[in-house]
């Protein structure tokens, strides 16, 4: 009997210990094709460079990961996990589940060159309480994607100012084309429009103050953002019925030539091209200036890698994070992802005009916002985006919506 119990315990011990020395467990949410390929590539490369380390890689479903990470960080922590910058990592940092990796950022001996310098522009979004909690490895730009041929046919040139932009919308509308397409079923697309109107009307600092809860939603400066939004919503420049469509479904009118513009992230380019658009008829421009003189900040949501504080193999995990921060590695990952590297010494895929435009824009950006739902806490973001969607369908309810958001703000940021 005793023997059986002992052997049972031994068996259990073997099964439950998922990692040994030299094993690096990595959990990622890279279930989509390109991200999966990118991680396959870098893990192979990492193993080649570090023959003493065996990587055990668990791929989670992209949506399911948001749930799973909350469980596995506590119960079965990997050595490395990917996540997002900004306020999105705040709950984990606050609960003490992410390891402080400020030493990687400080010590230039770790990497080729000084990390803080090469990734200076992304440092702010990785910092909470004066410490850095992860390494960013990719981001992408937001802006306006448009149909070049529809612009040419209607004699519109790329708008640089707000007045040009509104005039372009009016021309398109008169020609029977929906000026701006949007699918707001999953809400977040509305936040992209709001963020840009806010960044251009009031600037980056105001965006951060608002998402940090320092400014009431009834503030005249917030009203000013909605005044600008009114100029687009009230004449019906956005796609009708957007509340019933996902962002992908809202691509269809643009592909069919029924809509001309989309305020979107660079990930929209791939499905648009798959649907038949080419570099010759699909273009990108920076969201136009609204208040003259305000430095242009951009939206650039950043993906990151972190070390869970309960990780077993932190030594190799740090080696992996340092590896991920390297210019040549980031270059390769982002070539596969079709996105932009954070490290300034990396170059981007040649021959992709969208990446080139994005890199150019972001390298000259005054600052980088993560996105409304990553900068604001979850509850505020969810209520805010519901409010934006309601406003876009019923612009006359603006006051009521803003008062409700203000009520939520006072509750959330107590």
């Amino acid at each position, binding site marked *: 009997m005793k023997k059986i119990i002992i052997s049972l315990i031994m068996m259990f011990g073997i099964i439950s210990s998922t990692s040994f020395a030299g094993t690096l467990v990595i959990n990622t949410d890279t279930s989509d094709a390109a991200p999966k390929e990118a991680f396959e590539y870098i893990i192979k490369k990492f193993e080649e460079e570090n023959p003493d380390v065996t990587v055990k890689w668990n791929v989670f479903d992209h949506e399911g990961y*948001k*749930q799973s990470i*909350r469980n596995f*960080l*506590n119960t079965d922590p990997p050595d490395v996990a990917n996540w997002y910058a900004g306020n999105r990592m705040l*709950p*984990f940092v*606050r*609960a003490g*589940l992410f390891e402080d990796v400020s030493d990687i950022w400080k010590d230039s001996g770790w990497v080729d060159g000084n990390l803080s310098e090469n990734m200076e522009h992304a440092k702010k979004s990785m910092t909470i309480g004066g410490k850095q909690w992860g390494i960013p490895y990719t981001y992408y730009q937001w802006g306006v994607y448009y149909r070049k041929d529809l612009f040419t046919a209607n004699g519109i040139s790329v708008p640089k100012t707000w007045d040009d932009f509104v005039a372009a919308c009016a021309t398109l509308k008169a020609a029977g084309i929906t000026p701006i397409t949007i699918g*707001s*079923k*999953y*809400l977040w697309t509305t936040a992209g429009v709001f963020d840009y109107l806010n960044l251009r009307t009031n600037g980056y600092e105001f965006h951060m103050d608002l998402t940090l809860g320092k400014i009431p939603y009834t503030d005249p400066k917030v009203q000013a953002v909605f005044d600008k939004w009114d100029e687009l919503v009230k004449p019906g420049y956005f796609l*009708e*019925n*957007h*509340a*019933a*469509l996902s962002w992908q479904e809202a691509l269809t009118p643009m592909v069919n030539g029924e809509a001309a513009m989309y305020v979107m992230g660079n990930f929209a380019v791939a499905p648009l091209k798959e649907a038949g658009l080419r570099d010759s008829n699909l273009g990108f421009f920076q969201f136009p200036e609204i208040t003259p003189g305000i430095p242009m900040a951009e939206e650039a949501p950043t993906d990151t890698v972190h070390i869970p504080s309960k990780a077993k193999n932190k030594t190799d995990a740090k080696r992996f994070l340092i590896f991920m921060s390297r210019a040549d590695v980031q270059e390769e990952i982002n070539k596969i992802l079709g996105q932009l590297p954070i490290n300034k010494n990396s170059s981007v895929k040649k021959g992709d005009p969208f990446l080139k435009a994005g890199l150019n824009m972001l390298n000259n950006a005054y600052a980088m916002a993560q996105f409304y*739902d990553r900068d604001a806490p*979850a*509850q505020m*973001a*969810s209520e805010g985006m*519901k*409010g934006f*969607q*309601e406003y876009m*369908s019923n612009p006359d309810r603006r006051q009521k919506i803003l008062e*409700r958001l203000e009520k939520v703000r006072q*509750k959330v940021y107590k």
Partner: protein
Amino acid sequence: MEINNSKAKRITWWQKNQVKISPWIFLAPGLIFFSIYVIAPIFVSIGISFYQWDGLSPSIYVGLQNYIELLDDEYFYISLWNNLKWLIFFMLAVPIGLGLAIFLNQIVFGIRLIKSLFFFPFVISQVVIGLIFTWFYQPNYGVIAPFLNLIGLEGFSILANENTATYGIIFAGLYPQIAYCLILYLTGLNNINPEQIEAGRMDGAKGFHLFWNIVLPQLRHATFLAIVVTVIGALRSFDMVAIMTQGGPYGYSNVLAYYMFEQALSEYGYRMGYGSAIATVLFTIMMFYILFFIYRMYRNEREDNN
């Protein structure tokens, strides 16, 4: 005397109580799991509703704060109101199911195939039904679009309009629910006593009169069951809402079950306490119905026995 004594000694405690205990032994596995997975979570959930907890950090006791916040929450009232709409309109499944059952309760060639076709919606997954109806409702290219164009509602989107979204989802939900009621009534109709109908006919009852006074009372058990499953189905309506609108546009098609999920477990949620408070309210409402029906069932059984 001696013999009797020795016999009495041999009757053990087990033998004495065997009849009383054995049903509990057989019930034990079920009861244990039922209390671990159903009963206990109810109390744990009610307990969590007094806390503020994001699922990661330590929880903070806030007393009735979550319930007070609920009373001031616009979306809560919208969801509650939508649940009421579900309760009322989902009930249509019962008479429609009955009508179809009577229509299909005849002996013609191929009726089995036709019956199974009518029953089919209940077999396919709710997710599939929700998805297909979402496509039906799609403005411009959905199946319903040409009909909407006929009545001058060109490009009208049922699911994007705050006034019609809930009805659109209920309509989709009715599709499998009618099939469920249909099957309940079909089995009920099989058990109808033909002699009573014969007797009714001889007394001169026909048509609606015959149906109302002779057939329907015999279907009482089927009706009871159909109403209970439909009420519970209406109150726990979740999958259709999740698939078709996610509570949108801007929370106007939300129901309590989905709102609870949104607050407690969705991407922007993790307000476990608040979600539990919503769950507790929903549970209380359900409890009223369930107790009422159990009471009625109990009373009916007793009447039957008398």
